[in-house]
């Protein structure tokens, strides 16, 4: 050990720099590499995979998962979990659609659901932080309430005749579909904020060791409430992107949505034990799934394999995370 520390005291040469980058951003690089390799291989087998329309459907069609995974990543980094996000997105999308067809301006239809997401999740965060109920329990409860409430209120009716200017996910900016911009810009902002912001550091500290963070004078409870509220904001944005993709809104909860969001965070390198990970990783992972799902279609493989593939990826990622931790304990 002492020999290697002597060696590392000298200025880093290129390979050492690369090794260090890999140590710090290993999972993000693995996911990015997998994405590139997958697209190259599938594109070689079936060039239509890389066509404009398919790329739009992969990246723009799943951007809402990446957006929701930004908030989820913060929640998991803070040492918590939220299994209710899928239900919340379903509820917020229905609220947005109802407001839109009810004659309200599109801004009302967009911003009210986002505010509602912040409010609902702030309450969940307060239950976790102040009532000390584990987040898995709080959000399991919230999942049932939101899901049940949605079905009771709407009886599963579809909302149609949405005004055209409300459908933001179908708009383009500089020729690129807007959901892609939302995912990219929000990811970059949050990534920078998590890396360079004092509050971002507090989130990592609370998830890494809540007792030590509290002893160091960090307001751990307020931090957790804020993290959940921020997560609510991203769930709101994700809901708007989700419900404006099509001309109608099915007022139900998209099946497995929360799992897809959590999976994106975990495979993107956010440790399920809290304290580490980045939103760049979770966004890349969300895009990777979308690319895998589409590849299965182009390679004519049953879509049921997708779930199996995702499951294997989760297990592999968590095992790698544990191994990394064990090696350095």
């Amino acid at each position, binding site marked *: 050990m002492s020999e290697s520390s002597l060696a590392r*005291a000298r200025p880093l040469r290129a390979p050492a720099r690369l090794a*260090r980058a890999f140590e710090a951003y290993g999972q993000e690089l693995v996911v990015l590499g997998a994405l590139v390799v997958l697209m190259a291989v599938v594109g070689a087998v079936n060039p239509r995979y890389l066509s404009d329309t398919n790329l739009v459907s992969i990246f723009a069609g799943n951007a809402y998962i990446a957006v929701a995974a930004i908030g989820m990543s913060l929640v998991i980094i803070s040492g918590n979990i939220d299994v209710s996000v899928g239900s919340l997105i379903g509820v917020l999308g229905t609220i947005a659609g109802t407001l839109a067809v009810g004659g309200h301006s599109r801004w009302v239809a967009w911003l009210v659901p986002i505010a509602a997401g912040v409010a609902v999740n702030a309450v969940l965060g307060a239950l976790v932080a102040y009532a000390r109920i584990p987040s898995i329990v709080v959000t399991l409860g919230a999942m049932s309430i939101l899901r049940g409430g949605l079905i009771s209120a709407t009886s599963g009716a579809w909302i149609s005749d949405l005004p055209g200017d409300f459908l933001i996910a179908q708009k383009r900016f500089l020729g690129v579909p807007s959901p892609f911009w939302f995912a990219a810009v929000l990811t970059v902002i949050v990534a920078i904020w998590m890396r360079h912001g004092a509050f971002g550091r507090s989130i990592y*500290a609370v998830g890494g*060791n809540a007792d030590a*963070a*509290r002893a160091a004078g960090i307001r751990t409870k307020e931090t957790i409430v804020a993290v959940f509220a921020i997560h609510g904001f991203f769930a709101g944005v994700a809901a708007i992107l989700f419900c404006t993709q099509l001309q109608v809104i099915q007022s139900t909860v998209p099946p497995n949505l929360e799992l897809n969001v959590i999976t994106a965070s975990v495979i993107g390198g956010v440790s399920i034990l809290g304290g580490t990970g980045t939103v760049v990783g979770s966004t890349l992972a969300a895009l990777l799934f979308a690319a895998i799902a589409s590849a299965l279609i182009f390679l004519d493989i049953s879509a049921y394999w997708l779930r199996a593939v995702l499951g294997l990826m989760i297990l592999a990622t968590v095992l790698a995370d544990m191994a990394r931790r064990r090696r*350095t304990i």
Partner: protein
Amino acid sequence: MPSVVELSDITKSFEGVTALKGVSFDVREGEVHALLGENGAGKSTLIRIIAGSHLPDAGVLRVSGEPVRFGSPRDARRRGIATIYQELLLFPELTVAENVFLGNAPRTRLGSLDWAAMRARARALLDSLDSPDLSVDAKVGGLSVANRQRVEIAKALSQDPRVLVMDEPTASLAQADVDRLLAVVRRLRERGVAVVYVSHRLAEVFAIADRVTVLRDGAAVGTRAISEVTEASLVSMMVGRPVDQLFPKGQTELGRTMLEVRGLSSRDGVRDVSFSVKAGEILGIAGLVGSGRTELALAIFGIAPATAGEILVDGKPVRIDGPRRARDLGIAYVPEDRGQQGLVRSHTIRENVTLAVLDRVARAGILDRAEETRRAREAIERFRIRARGPEQLARQLSGGNQQKVVLAKWLGAEPRILILDEPTRGIDVGAKAEVHALMSDLARQGLAIVMISSELPEVLGMSDRVLVMNRGRLVGEFDRAHATADAVGAAMTRAPREGAA
């Protein structure tokens, strides 16, 4: 006399950290062999190898001359080796007899538990331990520590072991109970049992041991007959240098009173504690585990706030409802449990060092990374943290270096009052001396230091004044001239006058 257990040239490392290197050790029939060494010297690893919990990486373990490889503690038990760990492994809801025979209870011919035989044999075992007052039908959860320990010894003896390993058996016993325990150990020796006795209390070692082996930094410094050694020679074997250099607290000019507490009580066991500490002073707080010393620190620092009493900082009464408030008042607390309250192990050194001063290294919420790195480099240099740089993860550091990171974090907050809880527990001897030198230095710079420690030599060597806690109360105060090992030790272990719990 032949050796019952013999270890030759044992080496063991964990994750690249060497815990034992080339250690040889043996214990003979009818002998008490004491194993001495500071925290982190390798005592626990050695006895865990004897007990079958760890396999050595290299070297041979022999039982009665025959090489063995223990795959589990069960294998060791089958070979007649019984181990009593410091933390007693008993089931509080079961009775004494059930605990003694858990796992190898006598059976009737039909295969059901033979309760009569179990109770009778438990009774006989306890009587042989000179404990006729202990009922075999009592629930273990209601027993005193000393009695629970007797149950643990009876449990070990129920398997008729040839070797008994005792890991710091007196760590939490009062003096009367210690004497009784030593009598039991002598009786076992007369019966021919080979006893490995781990302790760092020298008085006991001289009272009971036939031979003593000293470990330091994972190596055996030497094995001696007890008649060949003195207390001073053992201590210098343990620490590797003459004792007088070990505790460098010099005389300092005392300034004004920085911290005063009056009648402080807390929900978890601090009762009516009053004291004060001045700038430039190191106030030692001695006490056994569970005496309320850590709880006192937690109350002052606001982690478990006080429920009654007054705290004055700089002569002004303050209300401390949380660590944030304490920090803002200039109080720093370096906890006993680094892993739990000290470090964020998944963070780098840089991130740990600036954790308590995030608002000072950030402008408008944006962290100044260059300033962070500067602080981390300065900490690495000042505290001689052995690391490859500010970006190394805290969990990759050794215990002593982790402790230095925690110290650096709190000193970076420029406190005026520093509370250190077991500042040198579990760190190697070299790092220990560095921490002690640093404390003296800080006192000279005018910090008021409260040092909690269960290591008497440290308390006596470092403190200007010593307070002793016992069952949540302050039971003694000694200035430097009057703080002797006997006086402080007696106050630490004195039983309370009435049975009030």
